[in-house]
């Protein structure tokens, strides 16, 4: 169950406590996030919404270990990632986080299969094992017949599916999706959100998603609203 009040929750996969993030620009200090608390359990699908500049992406970067907070702690599976060195954080990301970006961020000179294989190259899997994992991931996102296609030969929806396959191929602890439908037409966006919903509901993946799109947010179990650096629960879909 997702909580933002800092209440105790022994089952949390992700636990943020008193997280602050400040940026200093010249003489000005920007307080982007202020004392955030968040508890997310395994299998939760959380959407973060809010106006531009509200700190959604900053929050996602902190959760993904791409940035460090100015204060507070972030525990993932009991491990405080704010205490990890940059090198440890990199290795931690490889094991625990699957990223899905708005612009897909596939490498244009690699085929879909090679793009999906990228995170697996960091593991000790053999070539044939890697291939099996890649085939499974691409089949899961509905692209088993696009293995040898380059990103330029894929539609926006297919490219984002490939990016999702890359995010899930290592079976990470949770997925971080930054505006996953922001660059897609309505139909493709709907298909992508169905896919992400399936990953959460059928495969028990924990998903944290930033979006501006209320229709996309509807797929989440919980929608949290960020405004002026403060997190509030906006709605709970089908919950108490």
């Amino acid at each position, binding site marked *: 169950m997702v909580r933002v009040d800092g209440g105790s929750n022994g089952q949390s996969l992700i636990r943020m406590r008193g997280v602050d993030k400040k940026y200093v620009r010249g003489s000005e200090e920007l307080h982007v996030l202020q004392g955030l608390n968040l508890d997310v359990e395994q299998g939760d699908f959380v959407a973060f919404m809010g106006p531009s500049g509200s700190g959604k992406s900053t929050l996602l*970067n902190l959760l*993904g270990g*791409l*940035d460090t907070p100015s204060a507070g702690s972030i525990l993932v599976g009991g491990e405080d990632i704010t205490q990890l060195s*940059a*090198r440890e954080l*990199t*290795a931690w*990301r*490889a*094991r625990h986080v699957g*990223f899905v*970006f708005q*612009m897909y*961020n596939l*490498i*244009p*000179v*690699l085929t879909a299969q*090679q793009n999906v*294989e*990228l*995170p697996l*190259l*960091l593991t000790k899997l053999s*070539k044939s094992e890697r291939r099996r994992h890649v085939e499974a991931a691409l089949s899961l996102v509905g692209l088993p017949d696009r293995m040898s296609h380059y990103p330029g030969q894929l539609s926006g929806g297919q490219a984002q599916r490939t990016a999702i396959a*890359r995010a899930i191929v290592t079976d990470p602890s949770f997925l971080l999706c930054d505006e996953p439908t922001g660059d897609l037409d309505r139909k493709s966006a709907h298909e992508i959100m169905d896919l992400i919903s399936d990953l959460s509901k059928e495969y028990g993946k924990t998903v944290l998603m930033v979006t501006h799109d209320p229709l996309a947010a509807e797929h989440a179990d919980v929608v949290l609203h960020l405004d002026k650096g403060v997190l509030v629960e906006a709605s709970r879909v089908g919950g108490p």
Partner: protein
Amino acid sequence: MKYFTILWANLRRKKLRTILTIGSFAVALFLFGILAVVRGAFSQGVDVAGADRLVIINKIAIIQPLPLSYQARILQIPGVKEVTFANWFGGYYQDERNFFANFAIDVDTWRSVYTEYVMPEEQWKAFAEDREGCVIGEGLAERFGWKIGDRIPMKGTIFTGTWEFNVRAIYKGKRLQDDVNSMWFQWKYFDERKEFQKGLIGWFTLRVKDPDEAVQVARTIDETFANSPYETKAETEKTFAASWVKQMGNIEFLILSIGSVVFFTLLLVTGNTMAIAVRERTRELAVLKAVGYSDVTLLLLILSESLIIAVLGGGVGLALAKAFTLRGDPTGGLLPFFFLQGNAIWTGLALALAIGAISGLAPAVSATRLRVVDALRRV
């Protein structure tokens, strides 16, 4: 090896740019190879000079002769093992452009001093028995298509007239770098036929019993003939060869200067190319970091890319240089030892790798310093 897919894909990303960069390396290393060949050709005499050999020339200049009678006196000097002599002929075959070294030698002593040249014993015997016989190097035989029994007319320049010789032997060098582009004939026949400098020879070459005593022996020889009409200048063969090279100018400095400029330019070109190539991929590098690629892995990936370009380009350049030298001396005899040696190839490859590493290092380090969050924000 599992990262090869990424490396290969990146090399193929901008094919023209990759080909041009490889081409830059190829041109630079081709030039390096040719410079190394020229340097080797000039210093070959120095490199192959025998440590136990002394060369004795007229103190005034090498073109001034020495009396043959010195041979017996030199042999009596302590430490001297063998003495032979020769005389520069300076003739040419058909055309002056067909230049090659040709000189009269003492048949009785020549091989005891120059042991690095080999040929079938019966051929040498045939040469010794034919007053008009000559010995040619295998390089020369190949160049003019000469074979045993051929009669070669040589046009004399210093000793005028047409001199005809019968090819009686073809010699090889024991070492790859030994000169096989010379022609020798009998000094006795030469002395009988020439119209001046009778009983005089060009230079002596001797072997000492102990190479450590070579300098002392040389000093004794010069002292022996001091204040005579034909004063001598004795020096080790290596010193003699080195001073010969020096007469051509400071070849080493010239080659180093040209080489340095070429490689520095190559460094700037490839450094700039790699920097642009990496900058274009900022977002992709950020994604790789996001999914867990460490700084070291990224550093090695970028450096490997640069090194592959360097090895490919360097290899092509050196292979072309080698192929160029296989056609032999393009100067028509001025550089008989026109050969790209193995150590020059390895040095060239090492230089290419060093430039590849240096040019890839700065962009690779900047990639490791990339902040994922900042890089992903850029579009």
